[in-house]
């Protein structure tokens, strides 16, 4: 389990390296998919099955479909992959930077293994994150209403931004 979670942590870092090294947006979205999948694995390794499910379904299912659509909208004929020279320099630079910082902390890791949530208790009916998220409907009701209000406000912001060519916010000069 420790090795598996370590593999997922490595996947998280390499996914963000793939995003940050400035390839074409198609491949950057692919790197974000890898990073999100590895993050789900990390959360499962810590016992947060519901939070991991939310990350996988909402984040990958909802947000990245929209990103793929926008990447198709802003397409370009010759996308740069990680093998191109301008991108490969940044990939190697970021990997080298991460390795330097790992070497800085080497030997000083506090705990190399970890326990999942609720693993040391005797009887658990609900997993910790499931019962915690359900608290959003009772004690966190005010914040839930604030979130709903913000999402509604965002709808009007998006409608106003993309309203039309002549009357919209961003217009050609």
């Amino acid at each position, binding site marked *: 389990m420790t090795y598996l979670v370590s593999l997922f942590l490595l996947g998280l870092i390499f996914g963000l390296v793939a995003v940050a090294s400035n390839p074409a947006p198609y491949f950057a979205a692919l790197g974000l998919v890898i990073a999100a999948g590895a993050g789900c694995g990390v959360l499962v390794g810590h016992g947060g099955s519901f939070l991991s499910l939310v990350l996988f379904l909402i984040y990958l299912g909802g947000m990245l479909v929209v990103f793929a659509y926008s990447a198709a909208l*802003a397409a370009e004929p010759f996308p740069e992959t990680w093998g191109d020279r301008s991108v490969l320099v940044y990939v190697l630079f970021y990997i080298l930077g991460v390795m330097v910082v790992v070497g800085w902390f080497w030997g000083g890791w506090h705990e190399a293994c970890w326990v999942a949530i609720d693993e040391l208790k005797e009887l658990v009916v609900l997993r910790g994150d499931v019962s915690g998220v359900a608290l959003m409907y009772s004690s966190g009701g005010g914040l839930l209403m604030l979130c709903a209000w913000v999402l509604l406000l965002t709808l009007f912001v998006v409608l106003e931004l993309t309203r039309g060519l002549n009357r919209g916010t961003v217009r050609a000069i």
Partner: protein
Amino acid sequence: MTPVHFSFTAAFTLGLMGLAFHRTHLLSALICLEGMMLSLFIALSLWTLQLESTAFSTAPMLLLAFSACEASAGLALLVATARTHGTDRLQNLNLLQC
């Protein structure tokens, strides 16, 4: 510093560096912002799961809702830019006439 803490900190820093240094496309900057939000989600979830403070596990959900707001506003700006300027390269936004 544990390996888990190091990993999401490094992920956040990598996303921040990508956002700060590489700005050819607007969509690349938005994807870097999404990567930073992903590392923040993982950080808040790990805080809940490692400390067993289960009442805190609503915080990543609310962060996900706010990051959806941020992504939708950014993508609306991207669509508006692609409509008016024809492309989403950030150097095009500097032009006086297009």
